[in-house]
């Protein structure tokens, strides 16, 4: 009997809803979601008794397709469907082929792209765009999106409901051949995928499995951008490069005992060489055109880390200069902090600390545990054990999950002993 791939339902949910919305029209998103839910309920009823079919994805798609045909025939007069499809859904001659085509593989990939662009609607704040992408395209339930972002359920529900209203009100799915709006919308999509990846990579959720899922979803959706010439821009390639190069380090971020491990103590042999190679290749390909984005810079930094055999072997001056550029493109206290840490790596702790003192709007880091973590490391390096300990304890008090807390507590103990 066939097995189920991990997260198959979640993945198929996003694909089905994209195809169904293409047929029903974006104003009928809720109907599309109902059809998807029905398909899963049906699958559960049948499979639990008869076993999982050889090709569960095809089974789900066929069920959703038949249900869609049924609705399109039965409610032909009661509802209006996708204006994009014009009269194709009105006559029996064109209905079946149109629906069959919508459920074909190439069409589904395009539908996922259109949906992704539609979710990143300029009327919505970035965080709502990311939430919508996760909910609609990645099949995360409201509670799962809320959990991923450590937000309350009702707050997330409001955000997603409002997002869907805006989406439904936009009348049509985003048209990828719209040359006027494409560049701006593409950069919103890239930003949303970047935020999704970052939430997975640096986010506060204590469960690493959840966070790795977010990274995987972000990379999966970004790959869809790569498949079409209009969306496979240098910035898209740089974005995927940065995802690959950072994701490559994930296997080493937690040690054998389940504890968080900092860059300097990671076993670099665990880094994923295939992802590094892919990231390097994309980074090469991204170096065309006239615009340099924050993704290029961040991918460049990740690439320098990936190529170094040890902390000492790292090209710190180059990393500092990349952070300098990043500060001109997208300045933030976190970027400034990372820059200061890189300065300290090749010019010493004193220089690093004075760079930290110069960070603008440093008060925005008041709750950021790694700010105090960095102060702790640098005080420790210049032999000020007591100050280091205080900073690590402050960091541990601001830790967002048990893994971070344990990490800073361990550092506080180690510097006291040293």
């Amino acid at each position, binding site marked *: *009997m066939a*097995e*189920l791939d991990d*997260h*198959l*339902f*979640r993945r*198929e*949910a996003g694909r089905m809803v994209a195809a169904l919305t293409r047929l029903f029209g974006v104003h009928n998103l809720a109907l599309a979601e109902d059809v*998807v*839910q029905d398909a*899963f*309920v049906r*699958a*559960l*009823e*049948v*499979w*639990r*008794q*008869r*076993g*999982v079919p050889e090709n569960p994805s095809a089974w789900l798609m066929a069920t959703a397709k038949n249900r869609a045909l049924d609705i399109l025939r039965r409610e032909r007069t009661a509802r209006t469907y996708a204006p994009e499809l014009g009269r194709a859904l009105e006559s029996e001659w064109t209905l079946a082929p149109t629906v069959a085509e919508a459920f074909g593989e190439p069409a589904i990939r395009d539908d996922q792209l259109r949906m992704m662009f539609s979710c990143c609607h300029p009327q919505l704040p970035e965080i709502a765009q990311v939430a919508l992408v996760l909910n609609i395209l990645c*099949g*995360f*339930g409201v*509670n*799962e999106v809320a959990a991923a972002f450590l937000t309350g359920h009702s707050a997330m529900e409001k955000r997603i409901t409002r997002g869907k209203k805006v989406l439904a009100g936009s009348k049509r799915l985003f048209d990828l051949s719209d040359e006027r709006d494409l560049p701006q919308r593409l950069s919103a999509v890239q930003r949303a995928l970047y935020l999704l990846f970052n939430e997975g990579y640096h986010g506060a959720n204590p469960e690493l499995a959840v966070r790795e899922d977010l990274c995987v979803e972000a990379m999966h959706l970004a790959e869809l951008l790569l498949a079409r010439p209009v969306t496979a821009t240098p910035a898209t390639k740089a974005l995927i490069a940065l995802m690959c190069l950072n994701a490559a380090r994930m296997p080493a971020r937690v040690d054998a005992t389940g504890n968080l491990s900092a860059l300097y103590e990671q076993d670099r042999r665990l880094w994923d060489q295939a992802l590094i190679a892919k990231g390097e290749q994309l980074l090469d390909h991204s170096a065309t055109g006239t615009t340099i984005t924050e993704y290029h810079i961040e991918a460049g930094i990740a690439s320098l880390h990936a190529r170094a055999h040890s902390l000492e072997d790292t090209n710190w001056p180059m990393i500092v200069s990349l952070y300098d550029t990043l500060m001109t493109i997208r300045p933030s206290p976190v970027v400034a902090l990372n820059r200061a840490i890189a300065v300290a790596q090749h010019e010493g702790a004193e220089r690093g600390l004075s760079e930290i003192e110069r960070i603008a709007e440093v008060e925005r880091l008041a709750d950021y545990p790694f700010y105090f973590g960095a102060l702790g490391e640098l005080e420790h390096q210049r032999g000020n054990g007591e100050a280091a300990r205080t900073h690590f304890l402050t960091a541990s008090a601001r830790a967002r999950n048990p893994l971070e807390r344990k990490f800073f507590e361990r550092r506080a103990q180690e510097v006291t002993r040293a």
Partner: protein
Amino acid sequence: MSQFLYLYRGGDSAGTPEQMQQNMQKWMVWMQDLGAKGKLKERGNPLENTGKVVKKKTAITDGPFAEAKDIVGGYTLIEAKDIDEAAAFAAGCPIFDNGGFVEVRPILTMNM
């Protein structure tokens, strides 16, 4: 060994895709376990939630025949030593996660 019928009654399996997949995986594990222990006679079939109720020639009505929460959603034929063993195996059924329940009925055999 005697034969018993499991009737799966009620239960709402709706949820997020991930929850539903986890539910499905529990069913697979449970069925496999019944099979591995040699208890599974016939996996059975799911039943539609609609149908007809026929009481006499002239009284054919549309189902359902029970309260929605009690509708039989499917059946499985199993083999067990006695009703207690059959009931004990049913206790592992994932249907309880969704608020449903299992009715265990001995198949009546004639001793002739």
